[in-house]
């Protein structure tokens, strides 16, 4: 006897029989080009939905703010992904007891004023404390939602979440109440140079100042994008030996197609540049895992292979 699965599928097929298939809209939706910068748009949209949003020129400024701000809390549950310099000096507490949860976002989206959070750091600390502080690196703020959704195709953690404001409900007589189940306060701090700080956790935050007096002698972008362009149509292999082709290189992205699965991944220029910059500053990037941790978590194996081919890491 056929099971429920095959009976349902059969009924679906019978229902569609003889029907003209509707083509998918030809290209995925492309949002408008924005004139305002991503960070400014993100901050404006986040604030409009009740987020307490801040922007800091460097980790030192962020640290200064944190010390004052966190003094209002008794304890905190802090994501293991957060570098020492940006951990509040508060006693640790489990998420169900903590007054404050502190997260490290993977990205922020200007369109919707959202931060993208990962289950890698734990979900409870994002949800149970009444206040939630989220750190995000300035270079990880993107304009459009579509730019972060690609991560779902690239070996994602068990759960990603977009948080776009404090928990709220109008279920009681249409009156807006905050903090119904999730955090009633969402505080997002956009920090320039946060990712670099993570790359070199031994360096104390206080030595990292505004970018105006960067002491390094390395050029701002150690990656020559023309060199990536030149790889177009080339067949490369990842560290593990998986073959892929650099299918297309545009102004801001490189698209690769994996030979075995025929899937494509889009690598962002910004991430590749960041990795190259870190590498030229002496940060070791031994493989995809390190690339993911330091520069970007989009298709790290392929990104790493490209940079490796170019002798940059």
């Amino acid at each position, binding site marked *: 006897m056929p*099971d*429920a699965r095959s*009976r*349902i*599928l059969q*009924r*679906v*097929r*019978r*229902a*569609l029989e003889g*029907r*003209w*298939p*509707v*083509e*998918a*809209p030809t290209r*995925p*939706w492309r949002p408008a080009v924005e004139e305002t910068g991503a960070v400014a748009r993100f901050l404006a949209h986040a604030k409009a*939905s009740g987020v307490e949003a801040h922007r800091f020129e460097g980790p030192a400024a962020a640290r200064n703010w944190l010390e004052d701000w966190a003094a209002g809390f008794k304890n905190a549950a802090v994501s293991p992904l957060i570098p020492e310099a940006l951990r509040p000096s508060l006693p640790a507490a489990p998420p*169900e007891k903590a007054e404050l949860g502190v997260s490290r976002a993977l990205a922020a989206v200007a*369109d*919707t*004023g*959202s931060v993208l959070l990962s*289950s*890698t*750091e734990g979900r*409870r600390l*994002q*949800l149970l404390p009444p206040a939630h502080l989220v750190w995000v690196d300035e270079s990880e703020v993107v304009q*459009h*939602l*579509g730019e972060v959704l*690609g991560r*779902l*195709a690239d070996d*994602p*953690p*068990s*759960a*990603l*979440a*977009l*948080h*776009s*404001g404090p928990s709220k*409900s*109008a*279920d*009681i*007589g*249409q*009156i807006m*109440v905050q*903090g*119904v*189940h*999730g955090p009633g306060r969402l505080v997002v701090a956009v920090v320039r140079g946060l990712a670099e700080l993570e790359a070199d956790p031994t360096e104390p935050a206080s030595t990292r100042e505004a970018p105006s007096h960067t002491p390094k002698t390395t050029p701002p972008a150690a990656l020559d994008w023309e060199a990536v362009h030149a790889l177009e149509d080339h067949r490369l292999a990842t560290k593990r030996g998986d073959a892929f082709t650099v299918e297309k290189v545009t102004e801001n992205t490189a698209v690769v197609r994996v030979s075995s699965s025929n899937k494509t991944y889009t690598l962002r220029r910004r991430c590749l540049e960041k990795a190259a910059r870190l590498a030229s500053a002496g940060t070791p990037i031994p493989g995809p895992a390190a690339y993911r941790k330091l520069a970007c978590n989009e298709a790290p194996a392929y990104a790493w292979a490209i940079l490796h081919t170019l002798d940059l890491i």
Partner: protein
Amino acid sequence: MAAKGYKAAARRTLEHAPEVREAVTRATLHFDRNRERAYGEVEAEAWRDWAAATKRHTLSRLDRYLLEAERNLTAPGTEVHWAEDAKDAQRILQELVERYGVRRVVKGKSMLSEELGVNEHLERLGVEVFETDLGEYIIQLAGEPPSHIVGPAIHKGLEEIRALFHERLGTPPDASPETLAAVARRVLREAFLTADMGISGANFVVAETGTVVLVENEGNIRLTTSTPRVHVVFVGIEKLLPRARDLEVFLQLLARAATGQKIGTFVSLINGPRREGEPDGPEHLHVIFVDNGRTSVLADREMHEALSCIRCGACLNACPVYRQTGGHAYGQVYSGPIGIVLTPGLKDPRLAEDLGYACSLCTACADVCPVRIPLPKQILTWRVRSTKHAPATERLAFEGYAEVMTRPRFYRLSSKLLRLTAPLTGAPWLPVLGAWAAGHGALEPSPKSFREIWEEELDGA
């Protein structure tokens, strides 16, 4: 279902609970205004075209996308089940309850679980169930079904909720909304931390990546899907989207259509059970694909678009009929325009005889639907189909009307006849039309027909 189900229930509500009309009208107008503003901020028309086309495409290839979704869900360790109807779904749930020794369940809002009678079944099994959406919690306390797909308790005003909480939870009779919410939060927080199983629906399932997508404002769904060790997802087979990228428009369009927000405050993108090295999250994830009548709707060439519905509630908010009574008068899980269209298809076509008339054919719903479901046309189609069962007099009257209207000579003759007899009888045969005529004033024929005026005074002038 009694033949006069909707009408009788609507009358009861309007006569005995006038406050419902007030609460529902206020809430829906508020939602509708926000939607209108939010549509105006973006290229809503283009988004709606695109979203409608994407949904139609997905449905036209549904078998393929279901298989793709199953494959990608299973890969990271999610167990996929298939349920043909409510019984099947209940049996699967029962097996899971027994397998994991579940005593306590927390639930996120899911209309599908209402369809399937999940709560009643769990209670029969001796499992404690907590609805965790604040609105759902309120109506669970009151022992009522939801009256709106987005705001399940919009038919209740503050006073009523105060009284309910006072009686059931001992809050002061004049507690503020904040106090009431805080009390609910305390009760439900305890439930989240002690429940063995979380049950949710799904707004979308992405076939390409096997991702279950959930949208909400309170955070209760994120908690439901994060704190207990087992997470069960009930999802209608029509909820698929091909690619992760498609979410870009759908997440924003859903929020704008439903409440006028840019995006739901919390969006969960669930890819599988907890992974090694992650500090928390459910160890077991089960996705149950449910048919429960959906394949019949898919097979119906005039109704299948209704499966594109993303349950935003915009058509309810725009509907002048829904606004008068709220959802309970419809006597079904889904109310408002989409309820009229879906319910007969999912359950029993004869329900259209009753529900089909909870509509003034104003077409406001079609103007707002984010996925461009032709709701008015479909409601009309249900009416046409249900005429087979209409009272004989009404059918005869309309058949006669059609005869007259399609034959010019006949028309002229009968309009003369009407004009001649009306002064004597007051258009005597109109009552034959029964309900149709009840809400209309008596017709007063003019002494001359337009045709006669044209011929005598204007032609040749």
